[in-house]
């Protein structure tokens, strides 16, 4: 295997295990070849769903809205040299190793004090998105992932900036999506990640410096799925805050794994970290919730909670005693668990309608 090291000065030997992604500041990502959807097919999807996109790409071709405001967009064929060159331009803040079969680089940057919102429809494989918000800038990225996909996001939030990243899977096909982020002092990152694929893997790492704040919000709905998500937030500076919330619904024999990790390093005093993971299995589906916390500092607030269970029969009966059918009762309980997560997405109405119809299908409503 061939790797690109886009972190200046980092030259470590990579571990052999394909899933062992985090070795301190390095990330190893394995990508598989997959079918590339046609741009026409993706445009039709956008039309049918009445969704307007600023960028549509299948990893090879790009359609870019020329009216994009306040953000600079660059598309590059990625070659080793360019990746190395890029690291200099991006101030060497990125933390990832990416495999050589990354073909295209989409660079999005917002200059100091500017604000930009972009909605992207992305599919295929081999796409690296590097998004950068300069000091006190605001960047909101919505990524709708189409068909089979393998996409990597590298995010850099400079001092006092705010970045939002919503990732919405549009099909039950295979997905490998990863994001890495570095949050400078007083910057903020909100990530909302929706997974519903037959097979999906998401490995994510965030490094937060002083007074940074990260909120991760994951929704997973599995139907005969194998979904594996792991988030790691590494607080490196004082008063860094992290909130990791995940909820999963498993059905039709799904296997879902949620590993939420938070690590507070020495010097990150007065930091705060909260992990909350919930799962409801509708049948013999397996849901694994593994929160993990580590702290090298004394003066911190850290808490975690994880609960996985079948849907409460007591709650179903209570709702049924008010005339609500069994399947509607189940749906009401599941939506009750998911609703607060859904509302955090920018396109929450679209997502709510989608999840509503997915639950109808799962529950036979």
């Amino acid at each position, binding site marked *: 295997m061939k790797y690109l090291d886009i972190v200046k000065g980092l030259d470590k030997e990579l571990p052999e295990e394909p899933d062992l992604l985090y070795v301190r500041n390095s990330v190893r990502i394995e990508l598989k070849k997959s079918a590339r959807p046609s741009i026409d097919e993706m445009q039709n999807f956008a039309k049918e769903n009445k969704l307007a996109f600023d960028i549509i790409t299948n990893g090879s071709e790009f359609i870019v809205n020329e009216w994009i405001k306040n953000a600079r967009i660059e598309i590059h064929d990625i070659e080793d040299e360019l990746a190395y060159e890029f690291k200099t331009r991006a101030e060497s803040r990125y933390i990832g190793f990416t495999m050589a079969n990354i073909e295209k680089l989409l660079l999005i940057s917002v200059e100091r004090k500017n604000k930009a919102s972009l909605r992207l429809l992305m599919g295929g494989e081999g796409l690296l998105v590097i998004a950068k918000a300069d000091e006190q800038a605001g960047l909101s990225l919505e990524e709708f992932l189409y068909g089979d996909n393998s996409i990597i996001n590298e995010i850099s939030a400079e001092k006092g900036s705010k970045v939002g990243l919503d990732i919405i899977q549009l099909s039950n096909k295979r997905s490998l999506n990863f994001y890495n982020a570095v949050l400078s002092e007083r910057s903020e990152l909100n990530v909302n990640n929706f997974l519903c694929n037959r097979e999906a893997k998401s490995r994510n790492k965030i490094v937060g410096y002083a007074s940074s704040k990260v909120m991760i919000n994951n929704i997973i709905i599995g139907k005969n799925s194998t979904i594996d998500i792991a988030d790691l937030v590494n607080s490196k500076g004082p008063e860094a805050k992290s909130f990791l919330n995940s909820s999963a619904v498993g059905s039709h024999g799904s296997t879902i794994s949620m590993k939420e990790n938070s690590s507070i390093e020495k010097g990150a005093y007065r930091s705060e970290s909260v992990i909350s993971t919930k799962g409801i299995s509708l049948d013999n589906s397996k849901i694994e919730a593994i929160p993990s916390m580590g702290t090298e500092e004394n003066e911190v607030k850290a808490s975690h909670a994880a609960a996985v269970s079948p849907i*409460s*029969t*007591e*709650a179903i*009966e*209570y*709702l*049924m*005693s*008010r*005339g*609500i*059918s*069994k399947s*509607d*009762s189940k749906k*009401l*309980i599941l*939506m*009750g*668990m*998911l*609703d*607060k997560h859904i509302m955090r997405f920018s396109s929450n109405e679209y997502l709510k309608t989608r999840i509503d119809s997915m639950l109808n299908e799962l529950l036979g409503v």
Partner: protein
Amino acid sequence: MLLEIKDLYAEIDGKEILNGINLSVKSGELHVIMGPNGSGKTTLAKAIMGLSGVKIRKGDILVDGKSILELRTDERAKLGLFLQYQTPVEIEGVSFLSFLNNAKSALGGSDIKELMQSVKEGIKELAMSEEVIKRPVNLGFSGGEKKKSEILQMLVLKPKIAILDEPDSGLDVDAVRIIGKAISKSVSNGMGCIVITHYTRILSSLEFKNGTVHILSRGKIVESGGKELAEKIEKEGYASFVKE
């Protein structure tokens, strides 16, 4: 509406709890069931609503002459039966108003304005805070709020016959009076009602024109009578009613 319980025997986890209950409740009637702990009061309520865990061994439950034993809980609710839970279930993330809207729709009413109107009237009648309807169902409610929220559901959903399992437990005297008044009003508007209670204090808040007090002991109604029966229990306890 006529609810009839005929020679009902029921068990929980293989243990016989109800031993031949006979009871008839018509629209506009009030029936108070009293009895010592473990006499089968809550099991009777659960059996009427068809909740899990209660196995009917013998006998029948009929609504307007038709057996409901084969009906699911939601189907029984659609016939007009309502159970006020002794310990209401907390449901995270589902707002009380959304829950009421779903229940009202399921029972055939879908006018949101009408729903809001009856919720507001109910809240006022029960001296509740309007904040309650924005909160998740029963989550973070105080004991009193939970009891009142159950009665609020009864007022909004307007059942034909309500089974109220200890609506007064854990309430202060003012709250008991308010709930008693709301129950009496519903009964005078034609709702049939079974009130399960340990205490006589709610009886003083209920209008008792068509009321009957039943004493349940060891899974069987051992005596029925007027308000004086409850007063006797208050003075003497259940000892004279408990049959070996």
